[in-house]
């Protein structure tokens, strides 16, 4: 009889446990296996000078103000470059969650630029496994500096340069992300006939998260063409610096040997050399505004 009541008691207990487990099982079975997309591979849509795979989501407007100061080796008289500054202003918008567009204006060579960036693949785990994120960037630069030779026929198309990039990135872990960026630049008009119209380059970038809001970034572009043109000697652009995030803003502070802030300018147009101290201090400020708010589901 004692044993029986024990059995009865145990079975009731097990019933209680069973009921709780049952609810939990039911919940777990019903929770859909979602695609877990990797977010924040980089903090900003730029690694430093060049684009990262990050894009503006739908309805978000990014207002960007970028500066590159003069070179550090210009000495104390020029306050190590801070007396001079080059500005790039940009307005960039996410049309959909996979397409962002932007327009900008650089002081350097009085250049207007426009780009479209397509997110082709997104790194994910869960229901869909994708090891890398891939984006494609196309951009056009329009140089509006007056033509130096006014006597010859100057075409509008001579002002244009085109850029194509494939951006492949992987967030390896919470703190470390890398990106490779094969790039192609076509310049319609170059200074001399011996200067290349087409430039091929491979970019590489990485970020290491130091704290939740600060990361150390590096970016390098290897230019495959001979870098000695008839008109000028160019170098591979290298940039090193920090991303600092404060609520609505991202500040990027860094050192770079490139004065140009768009692809066309820093790929095949970087004339500064790190080892000679042709290093520019630079910053990008990004402020994101929400133009289209997400809709709350109608049934609640």
């Amino acid at each position, binding site marked *: 009889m004692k044993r029986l009541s024990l059995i*009865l008691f145990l*079975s009731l207990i097990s019933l209680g446990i069973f009921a709780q487990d049952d*609810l939990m099982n039911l*919940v777990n079975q019903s*929770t859909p296996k979602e695609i877990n997309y990797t977010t924040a591979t980089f903090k900003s849509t730029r690694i430093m000078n060049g684009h990262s795979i990050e894009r503006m*989501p739908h309805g978000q407007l990014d207002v960007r103000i970028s500066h590159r100061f003069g070179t550090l080796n210009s000495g104390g008289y020029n306050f190590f470059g801070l007396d001079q500054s080059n500005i790039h202003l940009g307005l960039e918008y*996410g049309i959909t969650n996979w397409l962002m567009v932007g327009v900008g204006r650089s002081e350097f060579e009085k250049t207007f630029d426009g780009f479209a960036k397509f997110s082709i693949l997104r790194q994910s785990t869960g229901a869909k496994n994708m090891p890398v994120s891939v984006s494609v960037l196309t951009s056009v630069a329009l140089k509006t500096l007056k033509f130096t030779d006014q006597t010859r026929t100057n075409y509008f198309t001579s002002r244009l340069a085109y850029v194509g990039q494939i951006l492949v990135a992987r967030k390896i872990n*919470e703190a470390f992300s890398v990106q490779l960026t094969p790039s192609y630049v076509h310049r319609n008009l170059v200074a001399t006939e011996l200067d290349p119209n087409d430039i091929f380059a491979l970019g590489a970038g990485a970020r290491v998260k130091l704290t939740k809001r600060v990361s150390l970034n590096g970016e390098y572009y290897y230019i495959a063409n001979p870098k000695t043109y008839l008109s000028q000697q160019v170098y591979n652009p290298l940039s090193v610096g920090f991303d600092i995030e404060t609520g609505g803003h991202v500040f990027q502070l860094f050192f770079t040997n490139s004065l140009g802030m768009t692809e066309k300018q820093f790929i095949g147009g970087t004339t500064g050399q790190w080892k000679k101290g042709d290093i520019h201090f630079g910053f990008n400020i990004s402020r994101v505004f929400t133009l289209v*708010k997400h809709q709350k589901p109608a049934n*609640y």
Partner: protein
Amino acid sequence: MKRLFLFSLLLTLVLGANAQKFMTKNGYIGFFSHTPMEDIKADNNQVVGVLDISSGEMVYQALIKSFHFDRALMEEHFNENYMESDKIPKSIFKGKITNLASVDFTKPGTYDVTVDGDLTIHDVTNKISTKGTIEVVSGGINASSKFNIVPEDYKIAIPGVVREKIDKNLGVTVTMKFTPVAK
């Protein structure tokens, strides 16, 4: 002896079969923060919830990445800096209606209930007790509740620079429209 054993076995089975369960896969949990500087709001309408009306037990599970904000940047910060949703993808509530006797699940109407349970957010579990309503409607049961939580209770670190922009007590709204689980 044998008969009694059989009886207890039967009793278990009967009780088990009688456990009437209701569930939803589209439950809503939202939270709201109001400060003079900024209003922040997030919605998640993919919450899975289960209610057992025989015991009054309920379990809710929400995926953190399913909370959506007006501002994409806020959503990124929420996942990246505060909830660490890559490491901790879910929040779970396991609770029980303490005054189950005052709810007549056979009669349509609205009943006030008190729910006690364990709320797990950011891998930290706290006991909470909250008031809510159970509404018995034809073909289902609606449950709703409003309560406040303090982010620091769940070891969610909020840095000084933004502390003034985030309410110390976040208002949480829960709305579930349960339907019977087909057995």
